[in-house]
């Protein structure tokens, strides 16, 4: 946002909105990292931490919506200001979806850890790294208001999709080979799927910035 508004409260409101969205993004990323690490290192107590902040993430998303609406009513923004507010709302909606996926992963992790470890769990790591990178890039793109990021992120998403397909194939054949581990393998497939959705949402975020 170039230049200061004459009305200082207008600037403060816009800044606050942006910070909230960024905060939500950071929360998503860090909680995702904690969940996956808990899964890979088989540490249960970390999961509890994620579950404790899930309400915070939801209320933050709600608050972002309310603030955005107040901003519109109060300041009747036009042009780039209006675009920014609308973007923030849509980005927050996507981050909210990402957050719910993170929570799903966190909820699934204890169930996975209850069963014996399977070697195929390692396939999740590269998928997670890619997804996390995409998420990080999308948040930066939002922060910088950079519509160019969409092309890079599309490529990332393609890679994520490839990794996901490979993982799915591997898991499906593993279930055929060793049917007694089917429970764990199915859970892992769902986790992989969540990671893939997260990648999609990251691309959506970048797409929002292009109008």
């Amino acid at each position, binding site marked *: 946002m*170039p*230049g*200061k*508004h*004459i*009305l200082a409260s*207008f600037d403060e409101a816009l800044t606050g909105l942006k910070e909230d969205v960024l905060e939500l993004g950071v929360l998503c990323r860090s909680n995702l990292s904690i969940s996956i690490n808990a899964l890979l290192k088989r540490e249960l107590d970390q999961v509890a931490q994620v579950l404790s902040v899930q309400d915070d993430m939801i209320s933050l998303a709600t608050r972002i919506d309310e603030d955005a609406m107040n901003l519109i009513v109060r*300041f*009747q*923004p*036009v*042009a*780039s*200001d*209006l675009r920014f507010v609308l973007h923030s709302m849509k980005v927050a909606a996507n981050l909210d979806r990402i957050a719910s996926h993170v929570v799903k992963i966190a909820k699934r992790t204890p169930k996975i850890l209850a069963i014996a470890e399977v070697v195929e769990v390692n396939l999740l790591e590269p998928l997670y790294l890619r997804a996390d990178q995409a998420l990080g890039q999308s948040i930066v793109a939002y922060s910088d208001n950079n519509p160019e990021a969409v092309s890079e992120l599309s490529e990332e998403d393609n890679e994520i999709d490839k990794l996901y397909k490979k993982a799915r194939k591997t898991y499906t054949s593993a279930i055929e080979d060793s049917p007694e581990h089917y429970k764990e393998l199915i859970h892992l497939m769902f986790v992989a799927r969540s990671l893939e959705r997260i990648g999609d949402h990251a691309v959506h975020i970048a797409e929002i910035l292009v109008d």
Partner: protein
Amino acid sequence: MVIEMNQETATLGKETPDEPVIGRIKGKTMIECNDVSFSYDNGKTNTLDHISLDIPEKQVTAFIGPSGCGKSTFLRCFNRMNDLIDSARITSGSINIMGQDIHAPEVDVIELRKQVGMVFQKYNPFPKSIYENVSYGPRIQGVRDKKELDAIVERSLKGAALWDEVKDRLNSSAFGLSGGQQQRLCIARAIAVQPHVILMDEPCSALDPIATAKVEELIMELREKYTIVIVTHSMQQASRISDNTAFFYLGKLIEYDTTKTLFSTPSQKQTEDYISGRFG
């Protein structure tokens, strides 16, 4: 005066980079301004600086800009009300209305003003009755027949959305009306002479929100018959009711485009700053 049909699309300004006006306005041209400069002190300083734009007919065009940017001055050029000030004059360029240069020596200013009407910021009905106010214009043009005048008064008051409210008290004083009604009376008075153009200089600035809304609605209706040019301080009003908007700053035309474009994706940073409330 003969209405000359100009180009279908009125273009504005040139495409050179330092010319600030771009955008396509559609419609037949009613008022054409070419490189108009204006001064209040015999040319020593220019209040308006090389303004070129075309105002299309039967649309609402809004002039916005900070105080003192020259938009009211520019508006008053169209009906040559600035002639009343001794030292004021056009220092360059020309203004053509319906194809006729309005500063040509053969032009009678009185005739011009019959075709280009004006509504002022502070409503100013005459201290006469409602009927006499509206019939003033036709009367001075020579209409004497009472029936004809009655018809004109009724038509004008209906056109100003005031008829139902005053039809039973046409002979009462105009000052008995509320502020919004008085302003609509002034509009009725202006349209009684059936001008081609109606100039409005901040017509709602003295009115409360409901009266403002009524006048705005009236403007939207009048659009079908008259070309309206409105100067306004309220950007929300400009964005609500105008088809095209011109942004002025310090006597220069910064941007002129359709309202939709100017308010959502203005091309000039100055415009963006002004409409977003950012300056400095």
